[in-house]
């Protein structure tokens, strides 16, 4: 875009100066004297070569001196618009002083001014006296006579052009008139030319300055003619109202729209009705299509030469409107915030009042600005307060004030302290814990101090109770410790007793073992000799002797059994019967047991049947103990059975269990007695003259042995129908 495109438009209505040089020759009068004519021609030719006013005037005065013999002359001209005539050329005077000579056109008393205004050649004779001098204007001619010849007139405006002052010479005024006319025309022409080019330059400068100014204005400014056609527009206006062909269609559309809107706003009718008026004009921003709201100020300018135009200034009020809308919005928000703040404050008051602890808010000067109801009870006087109450309230106030003062002067943000207040209603001392916090504004300025007072009475009471509780607790603890020590002592005692018992038990076991050895040694001899006697080692024995020896033998065996069983019990109790695990065949064992008791079986005349699972796999357990159990069970069965028989069965049960059952058809055991038979030294017939032998330890030992092998013994029996004792054993590890 050209920097000053508006100049093109602006130049349109400017009038052009008329050229008058071509008419010069037509005004020349025909000279009668050929010499004179040649001289005049030379002057005119000289004029043609001169382009500057001063140069031309100087040349003319030179020609006058040469041709007309005028030794001294001055040429004065009026510079454009000035109200004075200034010397532009001199002849015959010292140049420096003569060039300073000027005539003010406003000095109407000056005869020279009169001469110019009247356009009449005026003759000033030599000064004769004082009166003459007073009437004469001051000129470089001083008292010398001279003539003042007006230099034609300006062609453009009827204003005096200049004045020619020539020394009085005997010359025809006809010649002078021609010269003045020719020079006047030439100078007028040159002056006008200079004026025009000066004016052009000045106007150019002024115009560019003007355009710079209007372009610097951010508001669009335009000059339109009465038809709404754009004559002048500043840069801002051009972006709104002009678009070149290269611009996008959108932009050009926006510009067309803007022109339409502007034309209708500036329509002659609208202008006539409103004149210079303010209107709102909504335009489109061609750059982004957004709405732009302008305030349109139009002024009609009347110019007789250039016609009527309209100067319009568009002031962008989009921002203003936005600002006003924002203002409104902010105001609304403010109102809402105010309402909220009030609600908040109400709620805060409610909260503060609902707190049971006194709350006091003080301002930066320590003046109370807010307190809740509990605080009021402490610090404000009721109307019916007694003198004592008044004193208490004042005392409370004083205590609190000193606390707050301390808080205000300190740098602490928070302070916790104790204040000794009194309850004005009851008069009792009320120590409180005061927790104060400073509220500081955004600018770090203290705005308030909030203090919460917490009644310490309850806490103190609780503290006392706690102290008592602690004492009681430590008392209890002491007692418990004492008791624990007692228990520990008793435990230690018990432990020692246990050790002693253990030792005693061991000693007992050892004693029993030793005793049984001592018992057995003589018994061994007794049984041995009896056996030998019965076998006839010492000679044949018969009849009663043999029967009596048999009694000795059986009683001896019984005694041996008792000794063995007592020994077994004591060994089991002392835990001195270790397991000796081996893998063996159950049927083989049963057969072995039966074989060992064969003499008794024969004697009993009972049938002993074996029912053995042939596929029963060997089991891993203590063979000796299983054998002992089976021997016991079988001998019991034989002992308590008088008719029928005994069956020994062995079978495999699920989960690697072996079940061995000894079933008889004997006397049986009543249900209620079935548990008791496993107790130590228990035989159902407890009378001293019981029918069956035995210690009553057998089943007890069997049950203990079964437990040692992780098995157990159960009994099923019915009085008179026989019994079945079952030993179940785990088969042991694979």
């Amino acid at each position, binding site marked *: 875009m050209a920097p000053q495109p508006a100049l093109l438009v602006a130049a349109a209505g400017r009038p052009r100066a008329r050229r008058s040089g071509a008419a010069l020759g037509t005004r020349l009068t025909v000279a009668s004297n050929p010499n004179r004519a040649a001289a005049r021609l030379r002057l005119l030719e000289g004029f043609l070569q001169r382009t500057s006013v001063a140069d031309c005037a100087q040349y003319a005065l030179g020609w006058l001196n040469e041709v007309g013999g005028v030794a001294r002359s001055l040429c004065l001209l009026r510079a454009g618009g000035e109200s004075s005539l200034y010397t532009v050329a001199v002849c015959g005077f010292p140049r420096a002083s003569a060039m300073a000579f000027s005539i003010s056109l406003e000095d109407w008393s000056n005869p020279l001014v009169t001469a110019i205004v009247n356009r009449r050649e005026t003759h000033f004779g030599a000064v004769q006296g004082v009166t003459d001098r007073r009437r004469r204007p001051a000129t470089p001619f001083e008292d010398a006579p001279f003539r003042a010849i007006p230099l034609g007139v300006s062609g453009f405006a009827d204003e005096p052009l200049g004045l020619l002052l020539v020394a009085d010479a005997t010359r025809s005024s006809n010649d002078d008139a021609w010269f003045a006319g020719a020079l006047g025309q030439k100078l007028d022409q040159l002056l006008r030319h200079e004026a025009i080019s000066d004016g052009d330059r000045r106007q150019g400068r002024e115009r560019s300055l003007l355009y710079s100014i209007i372009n610097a204005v951010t508001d669009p400014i335009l000059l339109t003619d009465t038809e709404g056609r754009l004559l002048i527009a500043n840069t801002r206006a051009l972006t709104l109202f002009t678009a070149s062909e290269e611009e996008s269609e959108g932009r050009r559309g926006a510009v067309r729209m803007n022109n339409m809107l502007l034309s209708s706003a500036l329509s002659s009718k609208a202008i006539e009705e409103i004149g210079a008026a303010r209107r709102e004009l909504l335009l489109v921003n061609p750059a982004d299509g957004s709405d732009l709201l302008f305030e349109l100020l139009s002024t009609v300018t009347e110019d007789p030469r250039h016609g009527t135009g309209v100067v319009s200034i568009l002031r962008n009020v989009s921002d203003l409107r936005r600002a006003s809308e924002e203002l409104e919005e902010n105001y609304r928000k403010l109102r809402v915030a105010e309402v909220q703040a009030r609600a908040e404050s109400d709620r805060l008051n409610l909260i503060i009042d609902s707190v049971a602890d006194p709350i006091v808010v003080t301002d930066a000067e320590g003046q109370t600005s807010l307190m809740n109801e509990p605080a009021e009870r402490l610090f404000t006087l009721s109307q019916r307060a007694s003198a004592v109450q008044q004193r208490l309230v004042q005392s409370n106030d004083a205590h609190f004030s000193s606390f707050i003062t301390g808080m205000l002067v300190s740098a602490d943000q928070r302070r916790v302290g104790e204040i000794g207040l009194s309850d004005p209603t009851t008069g009792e001392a009320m120590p409180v814990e005061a927790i104060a916090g400073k509220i500081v504004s955004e600018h770090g300025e203290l705005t308030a101090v909030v203090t919460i007072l917490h009644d310490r009475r309850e806490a103190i009471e609780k503290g006392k109770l706690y102290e008592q509780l602690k004492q009681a607790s430590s008392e209890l603890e002491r007692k418990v410790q004492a008791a624990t020590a007692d228990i520990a002592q008793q435990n230690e005692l018990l432990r020692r007793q246990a050790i002693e018992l253990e030792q005693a038990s061991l000693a007992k076991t050892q004693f029993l073992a030793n005793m049984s*050895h001592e018992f057995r*040694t003589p*018994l*061994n*001899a007794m049984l*041995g000799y009896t056996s*030998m006697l019965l076998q006839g080692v010492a000679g044949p024995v018969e009849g009663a002797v043999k029967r009596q020896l048999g009694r000795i033998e059986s009683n001896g065996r019984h005694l041996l059994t008792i000794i063995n069983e007592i020994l077994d019990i004591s*060994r089991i109790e002392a835990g*001195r019967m270790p397991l000796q695990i081996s893998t063996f065949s159950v049927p083989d064992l049963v057969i072995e047991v039966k074989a060992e008791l064969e003499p008794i079986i024969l004697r009993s005349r009972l049938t002993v049947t074996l029912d053995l699972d042939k596929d029963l796999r060997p089991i891993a357990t203590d063979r000796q103990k299983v054998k002992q159990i089976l021997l016991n069970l079988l001998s019991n069965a034989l002992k308590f059975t008088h008719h029928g028989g005994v069956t020994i069965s062995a079978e495999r049960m699920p989960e690697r269990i072996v079940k061995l059952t000894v079933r008889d058809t004997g006397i049986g055991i009543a249900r209620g007695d079935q548990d008791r038979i496993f107790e130590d030294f228990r035989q159902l017939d407890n009378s001293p003259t019981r029918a069956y032998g035995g210690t009553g330890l057998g089943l007890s030992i069997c049950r203990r042995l079964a437990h040692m092998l992780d098995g157990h013994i159960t009994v099923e029996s019915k009085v008179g129908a026989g019994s079945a004792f079952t030993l179940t054993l785990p088969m042991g590890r694979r």
Partner: protein
Amino acid sequence: MTKNTEGARVLLVDDYPDAREMYSEYLEFSGFQVVEAANGMEALERALEDHPDIILMDLSLPVMDGWEATRRLKADERTAHIPIVALTGHALAGISEGAKRAGCDAFVTKPCLPEDLVKEIRKVLGEPSHAAAKKVRRSAKHAKNVN
């Protein structure tokens, strides 16, 4: 060693005279030759002098107990081959094990009827000689380790 046990010489070691006498009487009645000893020391002497075919050894003996005597007998090349049957009235567990460790070839708990003892002697002597020898060797080795 012969399978025929008739006339075999038995060294009977027991400190209890009645028992010694009883077994001795019955063993002779059963056809054995009997040599007697009342303690471990005597047992060693008799074993070396009288070359018994079998030794019946009571374990709790004065002067030198049966275990010690057995270990020494089994440690001595001259006597190591003689089978030893332990005799004891102590029925507490572990005793038979201890006796076997000491080198005893069999174990009999008192009270033991004379005829049962004879049965045991015949059983031990009736075992094949090579088996008995093997047993002896192993026992001797074991006994050394124990010492």
